[in-house]
């Protein structure tokens, strides 16, 4: 018997992915001193992220999670916040898990 509700499992997974994204950005020195503790919904563009840094984030996230962003997700909006990046990663990893 599975004692953990499915919704909670999903929530834990999301938290885990979000933490990996945050750690990744910290290792890539994106918004140093800020990214480590910033709210997941905070607008990274407003905090000073630049376009070149965003491309670095995109490449690093693809490598970290073994995914490739399709054209429709290659937008500024996809990389607006830790939360939105996490959404994109989860949708792509779930797609790849499908048979």
């Amino acid at each position, binding site marked *: 018997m599975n004692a953990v509700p499915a919704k909670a499992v999903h929530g834990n997974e999301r938290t885990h992915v979000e933490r990996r994204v945050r750690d990744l950005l910290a290792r890539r020195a994106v918004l140093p001193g800020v990214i480590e503790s910033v709210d997941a919904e905070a607008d990274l563009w407003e905090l000073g992220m630049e*376009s070149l840094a965003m491309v670095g984030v995109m490449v690093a996230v693809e490598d970290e999670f073994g995914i490739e962003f399709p054209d429709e997700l290659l937008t500024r909006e996809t990389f607006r916040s830790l939360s939105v990046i996490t959404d994109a990663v989860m949708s792509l990893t779930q797609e790849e898990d499908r048979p």
Partner: protein
Amino acid sequence: MSAGPAVSLSGLDETLRSLRLVPDDARCFEVPWSSAERDYGLPPDVLRTMLAAGLGERSGFDHFDLLNVSLDLGVRSLWTFGPASWAKGLRAKAAVRAEVEFVPECAHEPDEGRECDFQVLLPTGWAPCPGGSAAARFELPASWPRPQPRAAELLAEFGRVRFVRLPMTVGLDLDFVERTGIADCTGGSLFLVREGRRRGLPIRLAQGVILSPPFSVLHYWAEIENDGVWVPHDPLIVGAMLRWGLLDPAEWDVLRSTGAILARVSGEMGPVGLDAGRPAGVSFATVVQTGSRG
């Protein structure tokens, strides 16, 4: 620190020979080792080889040297993302529709105490940016006419020039291009247009962006008129992409147009953004709509 995935070193000697053609006084060894590994994806053995070739100091490396080595070795990094994206775009079978948002950056000092007053250069001319950006839409055919024989001859000759990212002072020096046989898109396109005009061909310069969503980059190429159509030609980039293994040589040569990924803005080499009349950097947030880029 992790050395990252294994990198094939074939061709490194040729890359280093090309880079030795760049004058030393154009170099700035300001990228530290840690950043060279992390941001350019170059493993320590490559960096040591660069150092031994005089392309680096204990304090660090030159950005352009790192960038060129990174491109030629095909390592994956934010700096090499562009060419991989161009290759995807060139595989499009249908017209590419792109929306490019021109986002200018402040060109004044923080202590000047005034608001930014932006303008950006769109294909329709200079436009104000009251909301901080302005957008342009492009529809780019996937296929273009092959060049006429005299234009083909010029492109084939110029296709032997090797693409190397260069510091601006060197890149714009056409004598350097002629002397060394290496060029970036600025000097390369100027050189090609000058030589084409000398031969009496209908050729012009193009300034615009080379599409690589989510952010394109400013780029220069030549356009040659063919039966009333100005056809974009970029033999320098095609040659480089063939060298990097990003284009299939069975389908591509330097005569073929890369117009599917070239969005023309103007025919001049100059700023595309202004802040209260001062040249301002511009980033090009890009969304591409086509179902066949993968």
